[in-house]
């Protein structure tokens, strides 16, 4: 990783004291963090710590109870902000791929371009084919999602999210539903995106990968960022006892 200039400018994404509950269960309890442009931020932490909820809230798929989410300094949770406009700037990829099963890979990738942005079929497919080729999926354009592997599904889902040229890409445990031998191809793709300067926030259990690709790692616990820092510091010299305990357990499970 090259050294980056100090983050003097407005962060790409900023969360200020975000609260969110599902029913009576609080999930986010004062989440505060920021993501600089071109940075890769990895969210780690035990199940239920709020990683996925955080990402869903940033994509406005779930409303927040209080706090602010700023994209380029503008509050996207404010009244009058069109969720569709925000989602066109932010891409999200889910754990379970969620390709549309009735559409081919190519149609999945071009759907939003054609129906939302009204790009012609030819232009959309040309661009999609270019992306599919770049990520080694050229041969699968005409295949249906249930005929290709989980890894291929997930890579296609990432390509689908990239089609809208998002300024920020959210990845929600994108390798957790994959067979171990398929994890590599998806992480490889994400690594490529990171090298290309894509701003990303990824919730992950792949600690090795997080250490390698992240500019910043946030340890989440009970709906808050308990500790954050560069991977070298967070993984090798965690300050908080909860972080130390979590990393020790992960280490024992052989995931580091």
């Amino acid at each position: 990783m090259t050294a980056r200039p100090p983050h003097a400018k407005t962060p790409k994404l900023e969360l200020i004291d975000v609260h969110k509950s599902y029913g009576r269960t609080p999930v986010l309890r004062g989440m505060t963090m920021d993501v600089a442009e071109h940075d890769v931020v990895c969210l780690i932490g035990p199940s239920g710590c709020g990683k996925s909820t955080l990402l869903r809230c940033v994509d406005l798929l779930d409303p927040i109870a209080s706090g602010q989410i700023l994209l380029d300094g503008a509050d996207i949770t404010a009244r009058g902000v069109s969720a569709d406009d925000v989602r066109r700037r932010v891409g999200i990829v889910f754990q379970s791929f969620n390709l549309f099963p009735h559409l081919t890979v190519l149609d999945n990738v071009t759907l939003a371009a054609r129906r939302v942005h009204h790009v012609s079929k030819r232009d959309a497919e040309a661009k999609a084919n270019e992306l599919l080729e770049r990520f080694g999926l050229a041969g699968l354009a005409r295949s249906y999602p249930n005929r290709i592997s989980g890894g291929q599904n997930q890579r296609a889902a990432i390509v689908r999210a990239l089609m809208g040229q998002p300024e920020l890409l959210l990845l929600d445990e994108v390798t957790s539903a994959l067979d171990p031998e398929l994890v590599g191809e998806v992480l490889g793709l994400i690594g490529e995106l990171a090298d290309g300067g894509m701003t990303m926030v990824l919730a992950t259990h792949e600690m090795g990968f997080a250490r390698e690709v992240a500019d910043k790692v946030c340890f989440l616990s009970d709906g808050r960022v308990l500790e954050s820092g560069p991977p070298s510091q967070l993984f090798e010299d965690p300050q908080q006892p909860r972080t130390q305990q979590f990393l020790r357990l992960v280490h024992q499970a052989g995931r580091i």
Partner: protein
Amino acid sequence: MPAPNKSADDDIRVPDQNPRPDGSSAERLGFWVRHETLKPALIAVASTVVVFGAGVWFVVSSPNWPAVKNQFFNPDDFAAAWPDVLDGFWRNLQMFAYSMLAIPVLALVIAVARSLRGPAFFPIRFLATAFTDVMRGIPLILLILLLGFGLPALQLPGLPKSAMFWGVTALTLSYSAYTAEIYRSGIDAVPESQRASARSLGLSQIQALRYAILPQAIRNVVPALMNTVVSLQKDVALVSVLGVRDAVREAQIYTSRTFNYTSYVAATVLFLLISIPLTRFVDWYAARDRARMSDQQR
């Protein structure tokens, strides 16, 4: 998938002339298979003849059979009633066709209205829910009677007076409520994550429904929808209570004139001529759909 690449392995595969491992040729194997399928077929025919023969014998041997035969299965009456009943049946098919055009559209509107989320859509959701509840709560025959006799009685200018029109309207309203519920169960069966991923791509709620959710939802419920079609085809006969001279009404008229019920059998035959092939088609389609779902590739 077309794969017209001539590669080396084309020379290796010549499957038709391959000898069987046990030395028998494919042709002999085919004969053996045919012979083996003959036996079950014969058993099936024999048992069918026995069972149905027993059933027919049981009915025919009843003491009152000659009278019933004369009242219900009189060939002369059948021939005499047939032209009018057939003429009436044509009207049944017309009403069937009109409702078939209106129901899928209205039902889809209601189903979509009920699936819209957000407080802004509450009035639409409420109206759609009220419509389904009321329409499903009224027995179809009452709905036909109320609309068919009630609305023309208002004598409002511009409102059609044709009994057939109101019959079709009643059928459409009632069946749309049921069909909307079928659509909705299909929509609900599509995982929430599909909606989330469609919305995350920037699709609006309506666009997500149209391009991502509905295609999957409708595919899920095609067999159920087609069963509704079979049911509608028969329920069209209920419109006869309004005096529409459909097959049932014509049969009734013949009966009241002659005191012979063969005309009802004639009407029954006509309905069966449509509904049995329709039912077979539904089964065939459902089976094909299942096969396609498990082997989905262009």
